[in-house]
């Protein structure tokens, strides 16, 4: 019998359609993260402080709904699997919410605008979890073959990062012949219409080949799991601390506008960084073969910090192209660091399955999704605090396109936020890794035991099939031998 762990389960079509689903999700998040703040403040005329409070409240809301969503997924048992139904039924509402987010409701009164903003944004967060958590979790159950899972994550993340830039491309195009209000609305409509189609294609194409256990989970298990599965908890703490590296991309607009005095250089800094990150993602599977996820994480973090240190030493009083080129180098490991948490998450799933016989993809990826949202909020908070400390001079809104003088102290501070501050603080994410045990031989042993178990389960399943037993869905951990058996 062919080794379960080495057998190829995924076809080219699976990689393509799943990547399209990831593209769609990233296009929506790229649109919301990149343009929602400016849409609320510049088009709807809502005060930035009100938008900031709403973002903060939504993070608290996410903190509750994400783990609960994960527990719901882990309780789900359908013939389509436990993840895909959410993606299938959530895709169309997700597209509608995306369109609603960018409707220019200028005729509404200020209070009604706020209510509309809260309702649509909280719904966006909620429906985003309904489709986002299964999307993150699907690679972990799409194939028992570890290399295939790594490849699927890696490819889909690269395509996803292209999707993230789609709003930037659309805006550059629409801004030529439309004003801000209609540009955002059209972007919302286009992405809102395409996203469900791509998501459904991915959901219908990919199969859940690792079947869920029979154990049922309670709603609050999502919170408990974080503390029970210590290796997962350590991985989450470590990944939470990586939010400092997000300061690099978040500072780009400040660097180009206030150090190099040219906001249009944004694309010259953001694009090479995005390309470098994509290359990093593509290299991740190859590097994964040479080192385990923990080593890869530590190596990439140190590489990133050293490269940022180099940019800091070279300084900003050089032509912008030098800084941009050096940042390309610094961003290479970021692509790897984007993939590694998902690889580690799969290791923690295997570890938990080996230890308890339970496999909780829903909870795992809901907490990872929550980690991403908390990281984003922390990044905004830290960035705003540092800018205040460095005496950043905010533009006066009474003046058209006001670009106030920034002090040398502020410029140095912005450059530090772009380089040395994330370079040093990033290293904090390595500390929890000293307590992370899922590496090297230990992980190999776990995977061998699981492989043996899965082969044994597979043989049992074949025997049952031969005996025409209707009980094919009930063993503790099953591998779908015939991929068609889980088709819709």
């Amino acid at each position: 019998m062919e080794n379960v762990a080495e057998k190829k389960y995924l076809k080219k079509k699976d990689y393509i359609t799943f990547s399209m689903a990831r593209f769609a999700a990233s296009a929506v998040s790229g649109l919301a993260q990149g343009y929602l703040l400016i849409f609320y403040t510049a088009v709807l005329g809502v005060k930035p402080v009100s938008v900031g409070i709403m973002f903060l409240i939504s993070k608290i809301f996410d903190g509750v709904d994400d783990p609960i969503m994960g527990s719901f997924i882990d309780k789900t048992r359908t013939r389509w699997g436990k993840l895909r139904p959410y993606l299938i039924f959530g895709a169309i509402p997700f597209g509608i919410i995306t369109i609603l987010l960018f409707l220019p409701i200028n005729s509404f009164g200020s209070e009604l605008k706020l209510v509309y903003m809260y309702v649509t944004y909280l719904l966006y967060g909620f429906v985003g979890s309904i489709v986002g958590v299964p999307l993150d979790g699907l690679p972990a159950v799409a194939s028992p073959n570890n290399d295939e899972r790594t490849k699927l994550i890696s490819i889909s993340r690269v395509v996803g990062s292209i999707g993230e830039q789609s709003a930037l491309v659309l805006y550059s195009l629409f801004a030529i012949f439309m004003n801000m209000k209609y540009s955002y609305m059209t972007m919302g409509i286009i992405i809102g219409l395409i996203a469900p189609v791509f998501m459904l294609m991915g959901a219908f194409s990919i199969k859940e080949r690792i079947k869920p256990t029979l154990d049922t989970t309670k709603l609050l298990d999502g919170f408990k799991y974080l503390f029970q599965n210590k290796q997962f908890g350590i991985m989450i703490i470590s990944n939470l601390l990586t939010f400092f590296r997000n300061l690099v991309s978040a500072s780009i607009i400040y660097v180009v506008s206030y150090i190099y005095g040219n906001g249009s250089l944004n694309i010259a800094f953001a694009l090479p960084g995005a390309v470098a990150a994509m290359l990093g993602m593509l290299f991740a599977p190859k590097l994964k073969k040479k080192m385990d996820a923990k080593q890869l994480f530590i190596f990439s973090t140190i590489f990133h910090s050293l490269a940022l240190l180099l940019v800091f030493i070279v300084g900003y009083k050089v032509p912008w192209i030098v800084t941009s080129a050096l940042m390309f180098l610094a961003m290479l490991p970021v692509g790897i660091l984007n993939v590694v948490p998902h690889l580690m998450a799969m290791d923690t799933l295997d570890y938990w399955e080996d230890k308890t016989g339970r496999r909780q993809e829903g909870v795992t990826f809901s907490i990872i999704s929550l980690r991403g949202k908390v990281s984003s909020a922390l990044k905004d908070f830290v960035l705003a605090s540092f800018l205040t400390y460095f005496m950043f001079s905010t533009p006066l809104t009474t003046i058209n396109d006001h670009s106030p003088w920034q002090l040398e102290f502020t410029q140095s501070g912005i450059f530090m936020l772009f380089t040395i501050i994330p370079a040093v603080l990033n290293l904090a994410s390595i500390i929890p890794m000293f307590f992370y045990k899922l590496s090297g031989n230990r992980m190999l042993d776990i995977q061998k035991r699981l492989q043996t178990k899965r082969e044994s389960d597979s043989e049992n399943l074949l025997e049952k099939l031969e005996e025409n037993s209707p009980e094919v869905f009930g063993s503790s951990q099953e591998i779908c031998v015939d991929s068609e058996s889980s088709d819709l």
Partner: protein
Amino acid sequence: MRRSISFVLTLLLLIGSLLLSACNANLSEAELISNIHEEANKTSIKYNEALDLLTASEEYEYTVDIYNETLANFDYTNKEMPNYKDNPEDKKWYKPKITYYYAKISGSEYVKISFTDVQKDESNMPMFEDEKNKNPIFIQESIAEYSKTDGIFTVKVDGIIEFSGASDDFDPSSYDKRVLQLFDVHINPNLILSIMKKYSDLSSFLDSVFSTQNRTLFAQKISLYKTIDIIGNNNDYVPFSLSENAEGLEEDFSVDWQLINGILINNICVTAKRDKVLQVEYNSEIIHSYQRSINQIWNNENVVSWFGDRVEASKMVVEFNYGTNKNPVNIP
């Protein structure tokens, strides 16, 4: 169950507190101005400490590249911008090169000013090397040197002595050389010290103070004043907090552009460490009001709207050298 209820209640309490704090965040304008004045008093103490350090220093030098820009083709009479919204290159910025060097050893002082003007056309507009109006065509550099030793004031332009005698007898307006008219060096040769002294008496500009900040980083003490004055239609300057045409503060700050000529924004930042002033930064910008006729597509009517945009700006960053073995202070 009890745990879940406590969790939900705590969460609701947290959200409620956040909303409540957001509602209470809006202080009245009088309270905000009072807070600014309180902070300005704290900054004044630190600022004047730094000023005392510089005044007491007997030996130091500095070189400043003075960045200065003026929108040459702004129509001040009709308050109209060049048609830069359609073509950004229509803006013609006049940007001469100016550097200022000052050295002091005990009672002797020396100043060297270099000025490189921009070539102008018959309409007195700056000329550029390229069509995008980016690189001005410069004409020959002119250098003025001033030295004051034992009470004798000597002025040289491009190496030739133009004046020698008591500084009070020197009248720069009697010379047609532009380099001599840039600064009143004979009254106060130390340009940066004279700018700093303007900000030493807080009471004289307190109503213009928009914000002040103080920081300490690696034993460096940084103090910043930011001020705004409203320029009335008679070009009179009124501190923003006393002006009838200015409303609100911070992000709510607004002016009625139709009723004023513009606003002047200044900021001065001093960095001191132990017994030395390390850096002084002085920035300034004038935002002028302008009108623009906008066609409303839906009713095909032209409506005049008023805005404000930068027409003048300058920036000076000064780093001091107090003399080291490698880099001593020298008076030529």
